């Protein structure tokens, strides 16, 4: 029972033996960590490479240069110059005539139709807009860069295999020849795609833009932030600083934690049933989307805010109370400023999640095909992740790069949002 005490040398020998094992364990752990980080970075770089190599094409679009004669006979045969008449004119015919002038040997209806298909159907609208804005164009000839059709665009970007049999290509041999001729003259070029950043959605890939979804996401997230941050912080402050600790607050706490784990689509169903079904709010609207996302982000913000409040040292509270500060003065003067960075971190996490959510928004109809750019929070709209989902689901080849382009825009949106939040947080942070 009474073992002889070890001598100092014996103890040191045992320690020395265990040292090797301990250092080895540490080195092994470091290696695991490094491997994990390298693997994560590799995947991230690969992901970015794929997205950017696919998506950068969406920011450039093929355009065709044609000399357009603004023929008064087509545009305004009566010479009224009234806006309604100018809008009603057949601009497609104008384009047809201009193209035929470029290729005088094209004869017959079928060949002419093939030729006009090189240019996007939306080109007529852009001519119409120009004429309505400036009627003095009528009667003049002007050089215009018109949007090419998506098939021509794909060919320019190398997505169409010329070796395929004619029937399997979107472009016929004749059309290929015309395109090559145009390119030879320098009348075909890839230009910066303003349409992508300034248009709403469209069935035509060359005409589809992301602005509708960006505005929709912006409005939705703005409202989400305006609701979820004050409500979340106020709830956290009440629960942490004022509420008595009893069974009821325990139940509330457990339920808030549970809410954070509820699948997001359930919140969408709730929004559909309550906000749209019961209160009769408009479908597909950022207003309802923001309500649903507020419910979704509230638990995250409340949990993070309570943790931030708990981390404020009690000595600060005692100091304030000991000075004769009332409870609300203690909270607003001392506790909240110290907890604010933590609360903002929770809000950033919550908002980033809200930006990426699509499932709950599908439920409340934000998945509809909406061409118009929303002008207010009750207008029908969609959001970026839903737009990505919609485009990825479209059969046209042209939407592939649009999908990646939309992902790039979503990532840019996220970066801008988080940078703003981090800058704000830095401002709030006390430097001591």
């Amino acid at each position: 029972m009474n073992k002889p005490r070890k001598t100092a040398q014996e103890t040191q020998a045992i320690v020395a033996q265990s040292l090797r094992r301990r250092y080895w364990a540490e080195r092994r752990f470091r290696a695991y960590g490094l491997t994990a980080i390298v693997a994560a970075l590799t995947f991230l770089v690969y992901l970015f490479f794929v997205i950017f190599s696919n998506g950068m094409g969406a920011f450039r679009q093929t355009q065709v240069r044609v000399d357009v004669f603004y023929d008064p006979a087509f545009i305004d045969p009566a010479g009224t110059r009234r806006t309604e008449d100018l809008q009603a004119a057949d601009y497609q015919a104008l384009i047809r005539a201009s193209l035929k002038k470029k290729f005088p040997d094209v004869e017959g209806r079928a060949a002419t139709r093939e030729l006009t298909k090189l240019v996007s159907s939306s080109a007529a609208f852009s001519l119409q807009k120009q004429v309505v804005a400036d009627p003095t164009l009528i009667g003049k000839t002007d050089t215009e860069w018109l949007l090419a059709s998506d098939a021509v665009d794909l060919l320019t970007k190398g997505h169409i295999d010329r070796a395929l049999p004619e029937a399997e290509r979107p472009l016929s041999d004749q059309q290929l020849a015309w395109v090559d001729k145009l390119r030879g003259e320098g009348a075909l070029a890839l230009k910066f795609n303003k349409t992508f950043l300034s248009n709403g959605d469209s069935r035509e890939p060359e005409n589809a833009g992301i602005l509708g979804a960006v505005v929709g996401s912006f409005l939705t997230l703005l409202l989400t932030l305006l609701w979820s941050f004050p409500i979340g912080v106020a709830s956290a402050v009440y629960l942490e600083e004022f509420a008595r600790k009893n069974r009821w607050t325990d139940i509330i706490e457990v339920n808030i934690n549970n809410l954070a784990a509820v699948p997001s689509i359930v919140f969408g169903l709730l929004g559909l049933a309550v906000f749209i079904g019961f209160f009769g709010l408009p479908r597909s609207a950022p207003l309802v989307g923001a309500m649903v996302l507020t419910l979704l982000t509230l638990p995250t913000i409340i949990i993070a805010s309570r943790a931030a409040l708990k981390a404020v040292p009690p000595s600060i509270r005692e100091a304030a109370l000991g000075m004769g500060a009332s409870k609300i003065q203690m909270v607003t003067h001392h506790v909240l400023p110290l907890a604010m960075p933590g609360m903002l971190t929770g809000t950033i996490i919550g908002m980033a999640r809200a930006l990426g959510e699509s499932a709950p928004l599908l439920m409340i109809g934000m998945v509809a095909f909406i061409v118009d750019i929303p002008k207010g929070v009750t207008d029908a709209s969609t959001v970026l992740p839903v737009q990505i989902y919609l485009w990825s689901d479209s059969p046209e080849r042209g939407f592939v790069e649009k999908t990646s382009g939309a992902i790039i825009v979503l990532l840019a949106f996220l970066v801008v949002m988080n940078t703003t939040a981090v800058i704000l947080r830095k401002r709030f942070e006390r430097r001591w």
Partner: protein
Amino acid sequence: MEAAQVEERAGINLKPSGRQAETTDLQPPIEAGKTVGNIEVEDPIFRCRDVDVYYGEKHAIKKVGVDIGKNQVLAMIGPSGCGKSTFLRCLNRMNDTIPNARVVGSIVLDGKDIHDKKQDVVQLRARVGMVFQKPNPFPKSIYENVAYGPRIHGLAGDRVELDEIVHNSLLRAGLWEEVKDRLQHPGTSLSGGQQQRLCIARTIAVNPEVILMDEPCSALDPIATARIEDLMEELRQSYAIVIVTHSMQQAARVSQRTAYFHLGDLIEVGETDRIFTNPRHKLTEDYITGRFG
């Protein structure tokens, strides 16, 4: 067997030794509320009688009665967990912030019970300031730390008056010379002793009647401690001070009266000189002669 050996080597004594068991036999029986010595003083600022504090089921202090005189320092000594801090925190109702804490008995400040429904707790704390064990300046500038109290209570009419209050408070806390050129620096950038004096300046800026100090020097070095002790002697001219301390030397140096607490009972109260030279209770004697605690 091995455990006992370790204890012996380390000089730890977990079991009552023969000698201590002996003293336990000899001490007079403790009876709640039976305090040895004179608990009364003439014209007291605080008059406490039969104060009991419960933390849930735990009876933290039992039937404590003592007067706190004006322009006096009352030192409260006793082993850890004896209830002296608990009693101190009763005096400005800081125990209100602890869930489950319950205070009964009468604590009368200037003729009015502080637990009276008409007594506002915010006003009470403006009259009874507190300095804590660990220096806890606000994470604000030195100026803002001192200006905070006058500001929330609306004591200064304008900026000039506020500057004046801050200046005077820092001066009286003996900190002015050290910080006058860096009033806008964070309060937490000061050394521990300076921080504690800043906390004292912050407390006297609202012009309280009583200052409670909960082991104000336990985190400070001897030089900083000496400065605070000098400061207390000065502050005594205007305020009543109650200090909890673990250092009997400190109690002997700074206080006029001393109260000895033991396991929630107030065992003995009296003039400091008398307590340290001629304690009347066995427990007090054991404690001040260093036999335990």
